[in-house]
């Protein structure tokens, strides 16, 4: 589709946890500004795949190239590369001993070596973007789950990353808070950021995804644009999975 070189590229990647193979021969490409949504049953390797992109997990075989840098265990460039990749976790993982503002500025100040004043200007801009400018001085424990997750998104944005990874960002939230987080993610998608998102929120997927990916038992089973993915996927397993989660 695009003639640009992919910003993320997996080639025949295998990943083992001891004897157990969590990723089996994964090959996939993500283009700059592409928005990819990954779904699949629990334990199918979605988290493992997305965590390989920023080196939180190391793959055993094959090749992973992100932003022009090949990943391997103990790579010195990994730390620099991670500054280009934001990640939002299911459990938020905010730093509980720091205020919201400090959560957002600690990366820019300590890692990017930006001045505190400058970092706070940027942080407040992104707090605005996720619609909680008034919570800057609070501690994470004083916020609701939805607010915490929006702070986590703002924290990734503050690093001015090129790529944003989401690993089931709404799965730990109470139902009434899911939409406030999804709304922020939709707005982000409109800014042209590269996004890889593991989620089962199919309404969100339909709205923003350029590419849908279905995984099962460590393999990528189906890769398709959303229209095709939701109307007539090639594989039976994907069909069954969609029927199952769309029923609810």
């Amino acid at each position, binding site marked *: 589709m695009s003639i640009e070189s992919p910003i993320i590229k997996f080639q025949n990647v295998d990943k083992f946890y001891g004897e157990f193979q969590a990723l089996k021969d994964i090959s996939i490409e993500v283009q700059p500004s592409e928005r990819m949504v990954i779904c699949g049953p629990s334990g199918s390797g979605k988290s493992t795949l997305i965590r390989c992109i920023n080196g939180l997990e190391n793959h055993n075989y094959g090749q992973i190239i992100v932003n022009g840098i090949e990943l391997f265990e103990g790579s010195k460039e990994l730390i620099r590369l991670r*500054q280009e990749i934001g990640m939002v976790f299911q459990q938020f993982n905010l730093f509980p001993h720091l205020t919201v503002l400090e959560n957002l500025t600690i990366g820019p100040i300590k890692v990017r070596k930006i001045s505190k004043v400058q970092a706070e200007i940027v942080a407040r801009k992104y707090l605005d973007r996720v619609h909680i400018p008034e919570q800057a001085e609070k501690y994470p424990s004083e916020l609701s789950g939805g607010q915490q997750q929006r702070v986590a998104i703002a924290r990734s944005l503050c690093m001015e990353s090129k790529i944003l990874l989401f690993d089931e960002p709404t799965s730990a939230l109470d139902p009434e808070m899911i939409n406030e987080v999804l709304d922020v993610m939709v707005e982000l998608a409109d800014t042209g950021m590269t996004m890889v998102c593991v989620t089962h929120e199919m309404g969100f997927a339909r709205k923003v995804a350029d590419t849908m990916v279905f995984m099962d038992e460590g393999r990528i089973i189906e890769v398709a644009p959303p229209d095709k993915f939701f109307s007539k996927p090639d594989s039976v397993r994907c069909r069954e999975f969609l029927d199952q989660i769309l029923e609810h």
Partner: protein
Amino acid sequence: MKGDAAPSLKILPLRRTSAINHFLSSTPVSVFIYCLIVSCILYSSFRGAQSMGYNWQWYQIPKYIYSYTDEGFQFGELMLGLWTTITLSFTAFFLALIIGFWVALLRLSGLFIGTKIAICFLEFVRNVPLLVLVYLFYYVLGPVFKYDRYTASILCLAVYHSALISEILRAGINAVVQGQWEAAKSIGMSKMQTYIYIILPQSVRFLLPPMTGEVVHMVKSSAIVSVIAVAELTTLGQNIISDTYMAFEIWFTIAIIYMIVIMILSIGASQVEKRYTVTN
């Protein structure tokens, strides 16, 4: 039937002990037992001293603590010894923290060699008596590296306590959830930055209670360097006794001085602890 009888048999003795415990731990009973024990100890030591024909000279003691002469107020020998004990303990503790931190990092590094080196160090220190370590640092390593007895005692205490401290640090570091590491990594922090800005600040409340225990432990174990004649509280006490033969008075006094210092430390520690549990 058997299945029914067994649990009821188990419950009865449990209830009985808890009733006794309840009685023993009620305030008036505890105070009574406490006073009884203390007076027994005091009485028997005074009786013992009397039967030895011991000549009590309590009036001699104050001059070893302070004196007030024409030249003004002066600290006595025991206070100078106490000062040495305190500076020695805190210097050694500071050094032990640094060594302990590096040993804990080695242990947690996940590197095969690092882990093995750390474990060897811990096993060595843990299995050698402190007294032997003192001799080792003074009589063996002292002449080799040309340092004096004061340095020897600091090094020895620091190494001994660093092993305990590294285990405390390791437990505190492990108590911080894995997600914090991942979040710090994902914003590009190095391992060292993650420790300094993310992990250790959260470990503090796990570390503080056992660490303050270690400070107290350090002050107490510092007495052992009297065997290489470092002029701290215990050594000076011994010196005074060999001059004056006032063993009972001096040892009681020294015990009380240690007790006061350690009680002050403990009170300070519990204050800090309270503050940290509030903000978190």
